[in-house]
């Protein structure tokens, strides 16, 4: 299931995914990417997050999120209303061009974050199965993406 959360640490891409580890960054994540979830003394949780769990070349990245263990387990047990996401994909990731509808299985969804200064747009990263990762700009807010699978 997809779940939004404040990521405080994400040890991937030289830590740039969370530039400010005091305030964290909001991401839409997928429970089918999480591994070894543990509760920290401050009641945040640590885990290892796989961008692509189907690819043996990809290891899990250490992550700390501002959530509780019970909330994580509840998200893992939540049955999504649909198994696909349909997004309005900007051609060439250019906001000045037209959009086209694109449907992505949520099993392949890796993570998403709101575009800076344009919260109604989001960047989505999803897996091309075990082969590759794709990043696209879409005309959907994070809330809209989450609403689709509730």
């Amino acid at each position, binding site marked *: 299931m997809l779940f939004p959360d404040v990521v405080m640490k994400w040890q991937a891409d030289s830590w740039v995914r969370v530039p400010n580890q005091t305030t964290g960054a909001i991401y839409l994540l997928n*429970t*089918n*990417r*999480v*591994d*070894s*979830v*543990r*509760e920290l003394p401050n009641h945040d949780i640590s885990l*290892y997050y*796989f961008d*692509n*769990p*189907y*690819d*043996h*070349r*990809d*290891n*899990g990245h250490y992550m700390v999120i501002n959530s509780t*263990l019970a909330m*994580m*387990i509840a998200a*893992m*047990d939540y049955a999504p209303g649909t198994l696909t996401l349909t997004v309005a994909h900007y051609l060439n990731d250019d906001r000045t061009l037209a959009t086209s509808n694109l449907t992505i299985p949520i099993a392949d969804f890796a993570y998403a974050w709101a575009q800076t200064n344009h919260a109604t747009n989001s960047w989505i990263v999803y897996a091309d199965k*075990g082969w590759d990762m794709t990043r696209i700009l879409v005309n959907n807010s994070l809330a809209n993406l989450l609403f689709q699978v509730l």
Partner: protein
Amino acid sequence: MSLFVTRVLEWEDERDSSNRISMMEDRGIGGSIQGRYFILNTNRIVDLLDLSTLAVPKSEFKYFDNPFDRRERYSRVVCDHSAAQIIAHFDDVPASQAVTLPIVPHNQPWGSPYTPLRPTVNTVVGIWAIAYVDRYNPDPNHYVWVCYTKGAFKRVEVLCTIDIGWPTLTSTTTTTSRDQGPV
């Protein structure tokens, strides 16, 4: 997808030289039951064949420790469930998608001067990641080996205290995996 406990009669694998079932367990000699109990995961199974006779349920299948990893070859498993029973396990709905593993630090339950006894660390993994659960021979009433996978990347084996929500593995009567039995 679900976890289920079964008595494995044969387990031919390349990773562990097919030693997951000791010779004593394999032959059922020395007063032991033939085979060894494991908890398996239905999401690792392909090519299920029914080998049952009228009186004895039995099936054979290919089993992948890590089905997502193209480097991983399958094992051949024969167990004491019929194909119909295995199919029923496929359709079981687990109570939760999250499994809490009380992991024993250093895989060492008793501690030593070098690895002092420490409390277990509760670690949650997805049920889809569990490859199998095996009995811990020195103390099968309190510990199990849990093998789970981290994505397609690698396999991890950890010693855990028994989660009371799991089916028990302690009904076997064999002793240790090093027992080879009389020659």
